[in-house]
């Protein structure tokens, strides 16, 4: 059994508007048989934080094009993307890219 994991989950660039405009969420993921990774975190977010219009946030099991995922201020691609194993006290930021000027 993996122990519960506490995270700070943040949304920005407008992605927070899908979460009642709240940018910072303190989240505790419950114990589960396998360790928590980003793939499971996304499922958990979809069920617990994202109340509607999931298509504006997700596509398949990943985030939709135009959303960058940053783990402890680094591009998730450097960390293993969906397979990154979450550590207690990690900061995960989902940022929608801006296009305005």
């Amino acid at each position, binding site marked *: 059994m993996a122990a519960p994991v506490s995270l700070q989950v943040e949304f920005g660039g*407008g992605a927070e508007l899908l979460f009642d405009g709240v940018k910072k969420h303190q989240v505790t993921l419950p114990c589960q048989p396998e360790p928590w990774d980003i793939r499971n975190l996304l499922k958990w977010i979809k069920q617990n934080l994202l109340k*509607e219009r999931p298509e*504006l946030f997700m596509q398949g099991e990943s985030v939709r*094009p135009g959303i960058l995922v940053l783990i402890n201020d680094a591009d998730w691609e450097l960390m293993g993307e969906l397979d990154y194993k979450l550590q207690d006290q990690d900061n995960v930021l989902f940022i*929608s890219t801006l296009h*305005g*000027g």
Partner: protein
Amino acid sequence: MAGGAEAARLSAEIGQREQELRGLRDRLAAVLAGGSGAAAEGSGAAFPGELPPLPAQASLSPADILRYSRQLVLPELGVRGQLLLARSSVLVVGCGGLGCPLAQYLAAAGVGRLGLVDHDVVETSNLHRQVLHGEARRGVPKAASAAAALRLLNSGVQYVPYCGALDPRTALELVRQYDVVADCSDNVPTRYLVNDACVLAGKPLVSGSALRLEGQLVTYNYQGGPCYRCLFPKPPPPETVTNCADGGVLGVVPGIVGCIQALEVLKIASGMGPSFSRFMLMFDAREGRFRNIKLRPKKPDCAVCGDNPTVTCLQDYEAFCGSSATDKCRTLHLLSSEDRVSVEEYKKLLDEQVPHVLLDVRPQVEVDICRLVHAVHIPLSKLEEKDEEYLEYLGKRICEEKQRTNGQTSFPVYVVCKLGNDSQKAVRILQELPAKELGSVLAKDIKGGLMAWASKIDPTFPQY
């Protein structure tokens, strides 16, 4: 004391005359700058042709030394850096909220040549953030207006206004003529177009963006670093993209990002080297926080800068992104014409006092700006949630109005929003509600929304 009053009167008059003169000079400059550009609009082909290379300067003139003295004494820049700046050309794509402060600082710093691209004209709603344009230049192409303002700031810089959209047919030729490109555009297709042109031409790209109270900045395609497509191989679904008109933007936010963008361009052009290659700067104005994010390296499988690129010439970016290369609001076609009325038709039924309910579905912040007094207000989000409290309130208002009629079977509800997009979504929701919710209603939306009302029916109604 009579002398004092006279002096004050004369001072005021001088001030007023000077202001008039300034306005006239601005307009003259804009007309002169826009002379060739206005004809180019829309065609893209009429852009000024190949530019002669900037003359290589061996030393700074006494005038240059005086003018740039405060930055010349910086060891990081020095005479060497200043001469490199004078030999550099920068293409600014978009003369809006980012492009204005960026071009202003690049001109002030003594860059050799500034290319200024913009397809749009100055509008009143631009002035809060696009600080090179002024009231006197409303209606003037932005590229020409920016060139006119910059010329007053530093006449030693060459300004090349391109009054038209950056076009896949001409973009590569244009980008090849410049040393550094600054993406200050406002839409997704243009961002992919600028990126691909920079990769194909081998130019560094400093890309800024801003919306609401946030900004982002990255330098792409710099000495083996990632390009925009490495980060964003697929364009975002069009319905997830918000423009400044819909989302809003606090003017100083693109101002800050544009200034940092100018700094980054100056560092590249003067040989100091960039700070945001493989890093993204994120600025959250609400929290007053800057964040530096470490980005992935260049991707070997990138479609344009990878090992086996599939994009080897510029393509149709509007088709690729499924959206148009402007930040103008999209027009949704959700309802058929029998479910919609024009503002003229709605005005007629108001005049004839036809019983109905007008439902305004804009967010509260927009209702605070202006509204039609007889409207019932329920934000679209509450309808989407099927919020019981709001639906009950709407049902009550429909009941009240219905009592004035002799039991019409389907009671008319007209739905209005700013432009006539959200109102269509709302009509769909009302049509799909079970009859027990509101009784039998006939929902239609008002085409073009309150902005059509303002332009066609009531000129005193505010436009925003």
